[in-house]
């Protein structure tokens, strides 16, 4: 069975675990960097990116996460996870993991009262997808090899750069598992 890790330093870990299991894969809760060797793909959940980043540094995860991406193992970032993957973060001199060729802007739809649900069409994955945006970032710029998968009001909210998948919203907060299933297919393609 495909083993998918969920980075469990902070955030909506349980929901991603449920989604992965519902798609017929094994979910591994990752709290220590050594555990990364045991999984074939990694989900970076929603949460607070500043808090997750501090814990990544504290527990020396950064190099291992970069190596994971460089080895071509699929990574999927949702909301805070997308911010961690992005090569550039507006207003910050340095990115976090910085492996996905996109520029993101944090909290770009506003504060919590502006958080919303919206219907999206996600290219090749889902029509009529109910997406939950919470203090969400968006992708301001995407590199030329990045495939843009979804937009909301002309803003890019989901994209794929090779084996890296990122979205501004929270697929883990609904029981529509089409995006998780797509990510697991991405992992399967790297194994064959």
């Amino acid at each position: 069975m495909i083993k998918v890790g969920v980075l469990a330093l902070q955030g909506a870990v349980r929901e991603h675990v449920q989604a992965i299991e519902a798609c017929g894969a094994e979910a591994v809760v990752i709290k220590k960097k050594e555990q990364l060797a045991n999984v074939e793909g990694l989900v970076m959940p929603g949460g607070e990116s500043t808090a997750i980043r501090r814990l990544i540094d504290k527990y020396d995860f950064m190099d291992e996460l970069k190596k994971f991406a460089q080895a071509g193992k699929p990574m999927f970032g949702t909301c805070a996870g997308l911010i961690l993957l992005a090569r550039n973060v507006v207003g910050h001199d340095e990115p976090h993991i910085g492996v996905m060729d996109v520029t993101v802007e944090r909290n770009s739809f506003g504060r919590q009262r502006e958080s919303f649900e919206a219907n999206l069409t996600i290219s090749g994955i889902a029509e009529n997808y109910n997406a939950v945006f919470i203090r969400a970032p968006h992708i301001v710029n995407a590199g030329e090899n990045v495939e843009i998968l979804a937009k909301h009001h002309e803003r890019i909210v989901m994209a794929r750069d090779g084996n890296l998948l990122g979205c501004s919203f929270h697929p883990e907060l609904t029981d529509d598992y089409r995006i998780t299933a797509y990510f697991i297919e991405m992992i399967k393609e790297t194994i064959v």
Partner: protein
Amino acid sequence: MKTGTERVKRGMAEMQKGGVIMDVVNAEQAKIAEEAGAVAVMALERVPSDIRAAGGVARMADPRIVEEVMNAVTIPVMAKARIGHIVEARVLEAMGVDYIDESEVLTPADEEYHLNKRDYTVPFVCGCRDLGEAARRIGEGASMLRTKGEPGTGNIVEAVRHMRKVNAQVRKLVNMNADEVMTEAKLLGAPYELLLEIKELGRLPVVNFAAGGVATPADAALMMELGADGVFVGSGIFKSDNPAKFARAIVEATTHYQDYKLIAELSKELGTPMKGIEISTLAPEARMQERGW
């Protein structure tokens, strides 16, 4: 496109899971908290132990303090409104606060009714001591819960009592026969449909944090061990000798709450934690947990 939906309001609290929310009284403290890895800050005029010491009526913070904190950090900012104080809540919502705590730490404005929290776009967190109270607050539209504990005491005993009580009552409910649930609803003073939902889910439908008495990294880890989704730290951090170090230690102990060697390391030489109050020495009217209905 819809704002203020149940999913958006509850989802915001889901993103805080495994994290620490810290009480702050100014921009400088807010930055220390953010830097230490807090997932949110609670902007206050005074921390609970000072509210306790000052006495008198405790109200919503000066909006200028809340604004200053909102401008200082990029993490979510919460603020407290008095129980049942519709206008304080509306003012905080209008300011763009990310979460409102309808809090017993402040002097209640209404001794009969809590806010109808479904009416608001901003989500609410409320305190609870048992499943009945938890279910009533969820019924009114709270999107997040926390134990009441006994705020501003630095004594974890009440938070432990409340967390254990809620979780034990959830377990009992899950194991009940369906024909026993209505009577349980009557006994708890809880909405029947909500109890059915909790029974089905096997847990509360919203996140439940620990609050009210967390004073050390070990306290935070204890609450996680007992099933808290995360931790609020009130007076503990900025009443300690070295707030930055203390704040980092609490964050790490919350993440790795079962890594006891690590907790030992990060508990070393933290300096004096806040003094703490033995609950039995508190006069009944000084017990904040009794506020709310």
